[in-house]
């Protein structure tokens, strides 16, 4: 079989992965690896830390030092690695439920300290691993397996949360923006300080199916057709509404 150009950086022995057809996580790993290679960092010093959930499994597929930790605790685990050995380039790849709900406190405090970490927060609007329950990012009125009549809770605006907490670099892209996402990964990795890239990603199995975007392709088309690039704007106004526009771009890049 022909080798994939990124096979050297994946744990191919662990394939096939557990992600559903139409999931965006394959694209996320792909963009991350390309962005990482472009950064020219010494790969022996790059460490991936994940929490729990679908995205939490990313650590297990990337062939670098990688830690699959407890639910919500990827950021403080990463903090320990980085503080104890500043030579390490520590990257957290985890989901919105993991980083923003159960791990929300750790996220804002790491941003407040401006710890030199790179966080990729994959937002699919639900808890995928457990079957599509609503989460901290589920848009108001969106249907999930625990909000059959529509979510009644307001979601977090992740870039605004990170920026207000003191992050040095904040961007949002979707899995339909692979080149821009790849570039954002490189920038975030090379940024000294706390960097967060939110990656809006499809979950057709749960979120899409229950919100009139039945396939992964439907969700990708929605991302493509409804994303508006507004780099440099105050992320205060970039909250996401159900089936509404998605404002993407690089919002914060402090010197």
């Amino acid at each position: 079989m022909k080798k994939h150009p990124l096979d050297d950086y994946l744990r191919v022995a662990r394939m096939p992965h557990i992600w559903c057809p139409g999931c965006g996580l394959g694209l996320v790993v792909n963009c991350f690896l390309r962005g990482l290679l472009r950064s020219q960092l010494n790969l022996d010093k790059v460490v991936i830390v994940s929490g729990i959930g679908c995205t939490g499994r990313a650590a297990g597929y990337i062939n670098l030092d990688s830690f699959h930790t407890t639910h919500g605790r990827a950021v403080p685990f990463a903090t320990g690695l980085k503080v104890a050995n500043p030579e390490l380039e520590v990257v957290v790849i985890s989901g919105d439920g993991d980083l923003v709900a159960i791990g929300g406190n750790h996220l804002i405090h790491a941003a407040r300290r401006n710890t030199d970490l790179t966080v990729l927060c994959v937002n699919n609007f639900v808890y995928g691993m457990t079957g599509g329950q609503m989460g901290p990012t589920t848009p108001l009125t969106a249907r999930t397996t625990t909000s059959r009549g529509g979510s009644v809770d307001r979601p977090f605006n992740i870039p605004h949360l990170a920026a207000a907490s003191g992050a040095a670099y904040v961007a949002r892209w979707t899995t339909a923006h692979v080149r821009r996402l790849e570039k954002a990964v490189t920038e975030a990795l090379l940024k000294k300080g706390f960097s967060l890239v939110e990656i809006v990603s499809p979950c057709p199995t749960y979120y899409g199916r229950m919100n009139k975007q039945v396939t992964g392709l439907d969700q990708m088309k929605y991302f493509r057709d409804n994303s508006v690039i507004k780099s440099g704007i105050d992320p205060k106004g970039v909250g996401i509404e159900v089936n509404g526009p998605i404002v993407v771009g690089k919002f914060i890049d402090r010197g």
Partner: protein
Amino acid sequence: MPEREYLAGEFFLSGDDACAEGAISAGCRFFAGYPITPATEIAERMSERLPEVGGNYIQMEDELGSMAAVLGASWAGTKAMTATSGPGFSLMMENIGLGIMTETPCVVVNIQRGGPSTGLPTLTGQGDMMQARWGSHGPYSIIALSPSSPQELYDLTIRAFNLSEKYRLPVLVMSEAATGHMYEKVVIPPSGEIELLARRKPTVPPEAYLPFAPDTDLVPPMANAGEGYRLHVTGLTHDERGYPAMTVEAQDRLVRRLVDKIERNKADIIALEEDGTGDAEVVICSYGVSARVSQIAVERARGEGIRVGLLRLITVWPFPDDRVRELARQVKAFVVPEINYGQIALEVERCACGLAKVVLVPHMGGRVHAPELILEAVRQAAR
């Protein structure tokens, strides 16, 4: 070398301060913590001392994060610790479990206070002894040490680091407010005289390294992050490569090894102190500050002609089953004073197997036992 790199000599220290110095002597260079009475003084001293020795102190947002950071720091190749009390210990249980599952060396100090819940923040207790053993979910074994003086808080903190590096797990130092806040003479020996164990490193190149393949003592050699081994470490049940393995067989193999690496090395791990147990008809079995109070009862009982011995558990977990079983065949009764409503007494009862009576002398917390209480229990037991 910074002037205060290593303190040797005689000092008048609190137990908490002695614990911090023990950590420094053991080579601990990372502390993550969250303020909590009566353990705060350990964090305060570490925040001052670590920068003097090239280490790092980080104050986390809670104990969930503290424990996670300690594990991360350990995988970065640093000896790492945290210190807390009951409410924080409860929060740490989650990542103590991750430390067990991922075989991460580190030290957790619990300066116990009265509980449950917020309980008696400033007053002493020993109510977390069973939580120390079973507090995180799932089957596992743990090591817990119980110091009876500030000197022992110094000594056992060093031993806790050595055991954690040797057996690759979080080792618990289970002290209490009474000892943590007690001031006494503490002798810190010259640095060369302390035996320090280092992490066993892999002897094979990265491509041949199986991160969770054990040596004959059931403990796998440990590579750190950033050394080129391309580790994968997960809290999921995993195989010897460290890869998730969701099978009954992998679970059986891993969990048995995690437990057996402690249980089969009990002879090395367990430390006891015995006084007059040889011909005793009654043995007081105690630990921490309660063992110290028991000493007074022992002396008075002997004055009354009672043949009483003291079995002090320096290692509480794993429990010294064999020695307690042996004594159960010899004595009429065990007397177990502890500052809770019966925790270690249950273990003594289990091992006594009905061969000797077990008399609990409970104290709900807030103070140490009056020696008379223990003495009276000894008198009754000797009858």
